[in-house]
């Protein structure tokens, strides 16, 4: 049994997250001009189609432009140090592109390879990323040149916006299944290997949409 969520219900979910005090980050168009990832104040700010990808990245969520690391107070000769309030609000990125989500894997490595950056890690722990696969690209896209794909799954949970699947079959993680592209489906499965829940979801979808996958050689990609 595959799970499908409609755009309307996704927005409702986003609305509930916002009301519950979670911080939601997603594509919005602040005014005529570029679409940007930004903190959403309301669910109807979330923009799910009509553009290729936002002009900025999701880096802000885990590595903000500016943050207070510590503070200090001098009183005569006395120095007292202060720590910023520890972050507690959960943050959810909705509608990230796979290329943007993949960057988090690299950042995880950068902020942990020699020193465990507690500021980064705290934000990372609190962050959940929900990607939306790409149904179109422009002349500047190059995910395939760096080993990614419009439907790649690397970090975070997957929620295909399956409404679009009904309109354009070459979409989301369902695309390779619909195209019977064995190599891509196997690549997707390999990427999901460490996550039993997602694997189960994908397997369920696969068995309903491509029942002969196990036996069928499939068309070449």
């Amino acid at each position, binding site marked *: 049994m595959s799970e499908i969520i409609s755009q309307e219900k996704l927005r409702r979910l986003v609305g509930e997250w916002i009301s519950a005090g979670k911080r939601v980050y997603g594509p919005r168009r602040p005014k005529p001009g570029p679409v940007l990832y930004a903190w959403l104040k309301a669910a109807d700010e979330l923009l799910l189609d009509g553009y290729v990808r936002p002009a*900025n990245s999701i880096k802000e969520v885990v590595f903000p432009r500016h943050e207070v690391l510590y503070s200090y107070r001098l009183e005569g000769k006395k120095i007292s140090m202060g720590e910023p309030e520890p972050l507690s609000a959960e943050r959810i990125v909705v509608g990230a592109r796979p290329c943007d989500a993949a960057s988090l894997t690299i950042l995880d490595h950068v902020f942990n390879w020699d020193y465990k950056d507690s500021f980064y890690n705290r934000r990372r722990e609190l962050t959940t990323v929900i990607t939306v696969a790409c149904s179109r690209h422009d002349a500047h896209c190059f995910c395939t040149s760096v080993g990614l794909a419009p439907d790649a799954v690397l970090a975070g949970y997957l929620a295909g916006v399956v409404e679009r699947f009904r309109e354009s079959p070459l979409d989301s993680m369902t695309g390779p299944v619909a195209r019977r592209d064995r190599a891509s489906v196997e690549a997707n499965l390999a990427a999901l290997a460490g996550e039993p829940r997602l694997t189960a979801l994908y397997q369920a979808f696969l068995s309903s949409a491509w029942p002969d996958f196990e036996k069928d050689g499939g068309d070449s990609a």
Partner: protein
Amino acid sequence: MLEELRQTCRALLADGKADVVIGYAQDDPAMPAYPVFVTRPEDADRLVWNEMCLPNLVAYLTRPEIKALGKPAVVVKGCDERALVVLAREGQVDRGEMVAIGVACDGVGKPREAKCSICDVHQPRYADVVMGQAKNEPVDAAARYAEVEEFLKKTPVERMAFWREELSRCVKCYACRQVCPLCYCTRCIADKNQPQCIDTSATLKGNFAWHLTRAFHLAGRCAGCDECTRACPVGINLRLLNLTLARSAEAQFGYRSGMDPEAKPVVGSYSLQDKEEFIR
């Protein structure tokens, strides 16, 4: 006109009247044309001229790596030419040591850039050679600054709220500075750190400091090419900020930058008659 442009550039290079032609080339007709630096006559065929020729090529005239290429010829639309006039006035280019190739222009951009609807320099006026014919209809100041007038209907509190929202998006990429033909300081005040004059962080405080400074440093100089607005990756309405100061310069001093090569610049000169109602 395109053939005429290419032929003119070919001849300039072949006759040694220019060492480099700074013009437009384009691969994808749907994308803006990009700058190209042609040094061989046969490469003049790469030059294009169409409504996607958006960049202001005058910005390259003050770059040391371009100056090193030799005597330049630069393709200019009317708006670009205004920047050239300002640069010449400020002693940054020697008009006698370069060739300005004017192109008559009906407007650029798809959709049309905002600046085009109030343009009164469709036909370049000070170029050494001009391709094409266009009419320069005067535009009255009310139309020219309509966007600012509209904006000033907001209360000060609303204006502050507007700029707080706009400037919160700034990431201090400095694309606006990079693309501006009049931001040619080899050491920008934003780069000074002993002491630091402008907070360089991408916080609201730093963003206000930068944009106030840049707008003010362009007061009475900005040519209104709007390349800064187009270059901004997060869509900040820099046009509005620059237009505000242009309006102030015209309203208070009757001055428009880049329109008259002989006019005295507004900042850097003064008059004993300058109004001072606001000074106690």
